[in-house]
């Protein structure tokens, strides 16, 4: 295989595999807990955080992680009350993005090292541009996220499926929720490096949505989601390598969307369980 002789491809494969694994695991719980909207929120925050760090002269990843994890803690602290007012939430996101544009201009105009494509790279990712140290760090962090998710998987599953019963059984529901959101934040920061902040929602939602469609059994779905995410990442990277016109983030997204579409259309669920249909 000639692809593996190129260091950039090996780095992308290393980082991409780890990131996809983490995104598949985290994404499954995100879909299960109906918190996909949180992923949307984090994508906006990731953009602004990364560009703020660049504008202030820090490493991009520092801004990514600081912004997403901080925001996740904030969301967790606020609780789920604010979910209903989508106008307020949408306005806040929109403003955060506007602020990101401000930092982008600040970065491109004030720093002579700044390049005009910084904004595009943050928005749409540049996985083929990772250096070996960046790729290794991304893989290690993603590995930690995977381990953490697996460590809390059982109580988190319980709390996600039936929060009230879990709370009654003395599962620390609230703490688990916050811990999970922090993991989502870290995972979003990781995914932003691979496919960019605008597209990370797809990486989180598509494999998980497909997995949830294919099987009802939680642990199978969790494993399937992670497996699908990794397979889609590999297929996307290969596609982008052999068809250089396709940017890697588009190739990954296209494969992920295609798999999800097949799962949606091809798999007919035994939907009509009489009696449950109303609920």
């Amino acid at each position, binding site marked *: 295989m000639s692809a593996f002789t190129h260091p950039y491809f090996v780095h992308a494969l290393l980082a991409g595999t780890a990131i996809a694994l983490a995104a598949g695991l985290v994404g499954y719980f995100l*879909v299960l807990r109906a918190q*996909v909207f949180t992923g949307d929120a984090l994508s906006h925050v990731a953009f602004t955080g990364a560009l703020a760090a660049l504008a202030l002269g820090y490493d991009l990843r520092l801004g990514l992680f600081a912004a997403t994890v901080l925001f996740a803690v904030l969301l967790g602290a606020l609780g789920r009350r604010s979910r209903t007012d989508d106008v307020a939430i949408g306005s806040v996101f929109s*403003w955060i993005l*506007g602020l990101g544009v401000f930092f982008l201009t600040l970065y491109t105009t004030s720093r002579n090292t700044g390049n005009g494509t910084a904004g*595009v790279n943050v928005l*749409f990712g540049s996985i083929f541009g990772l250096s070996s140290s960046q790729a290794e760090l991304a893989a290690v962090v993603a590995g930690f996220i995977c381990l953490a998710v697996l460590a809390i998987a059982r109580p988190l599953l319980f709390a996600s499926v039936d929060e009230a019963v879990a709370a009654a059984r003395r599962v620390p529901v609230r703490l688990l929720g916050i811990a999970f959101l922090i993991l989502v934040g870290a995972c979003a920061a990781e995914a932003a490096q691979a496919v960019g902040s605008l597209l990370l929602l797809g990486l989180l*939602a*598509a494999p998980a949505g497909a997995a949830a469609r294919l099987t009802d059994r939680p642990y199978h779905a969790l494993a399937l989601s992670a497996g699908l995410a990794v397979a889609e990442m590999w297929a996307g990277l290969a596609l982008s390598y052999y068809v250089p016109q396709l940017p890697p983030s*588009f190739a990954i997204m296209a494969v992920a969307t295609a798999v999800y579409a097949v799962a949606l259309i091809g798999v007919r669920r035994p939907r009509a369980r009489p009696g449950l249909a109303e609920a």
Partner: protein
Amino acid sequence: MNWADASAGWSWNPVTDLQQIWAFPFMVNAFRAGTVVAVLAAVMGWFMVLRRQSFAGHTLAVVSFPGAAFATLLGIGAGFGYFAFCVGGALVIAAIPRAGQGGSGQESALTGTVQAFLLACGFLFVALYKGFLGGVNSLLFGSFLGITTLQVAVLTIVAAAALGALTVIGRPLLFASVDENVATGRGVPVRALSVVFLVLLGTATAEASQITGTLLVFALLVMPAAAAQQLTARPALSLALSVLIALAVTWTGLIAAYYSPYPIGFYVTTFAFSVYVLARATRALNTAVGRHRFAGAGAGAGAGAVA
């Protein structure tokens, strides 16, 4: 564009400042286009907020990015791409019942995937169209430079047509938006109205995207309307207020962007968001004062009764 030549600085005299700004044809066009878009977006946004369809607006805005990028790739004007994709997207949303709503779990996973895929498609078109990478920022975050007189004319005609259509369906639409069940019972064609409105919303989104960019459409479409509806509950008044806020935000945004190196998207979102926050604060204050008065009166009455 050399900013030092173009602007002699802010003089705190609005008349000379506006004269100075309007000495440039591109700024005159920017103000014309901004005014048209602000009025249309505010009116459509008002109905959208009332109907709680801001999620549909968000999706339509996302659709506009691949539309504009695809049109640029084909070499036709980005405006055509905006309109074609947004109206097409509106028809798709209208065709799928319950699409364009947040929903939970599986449904929102689907929406998120579709949105991410559309943005990825836009990125693909941009990547295929070489040498356009700088333009991504203006597609996503808006730009007021280089608006031609022809574009202004197209924006105005489309906006006039959309507003005309809205005046025709305005009354039944308001009825259907406020109470769908009663409206259905009274024989109002609720479903047809909803489809027509989505198409109109698509055109409004397409217009707003050309000023604020795909990602910041909320600034003109949602925030003025949401602020106005916080301030007053009377439909006509809050509709007028919404238009006024959108106009003020656009004009101040244009002026601020003219005098500084930062993009218009930042100013428009920031101004609109501050108005929204102020409106919410005003309402919260009013409610608190009202409650305080009520509590005071109640306590007084209670004390009187005891005495």
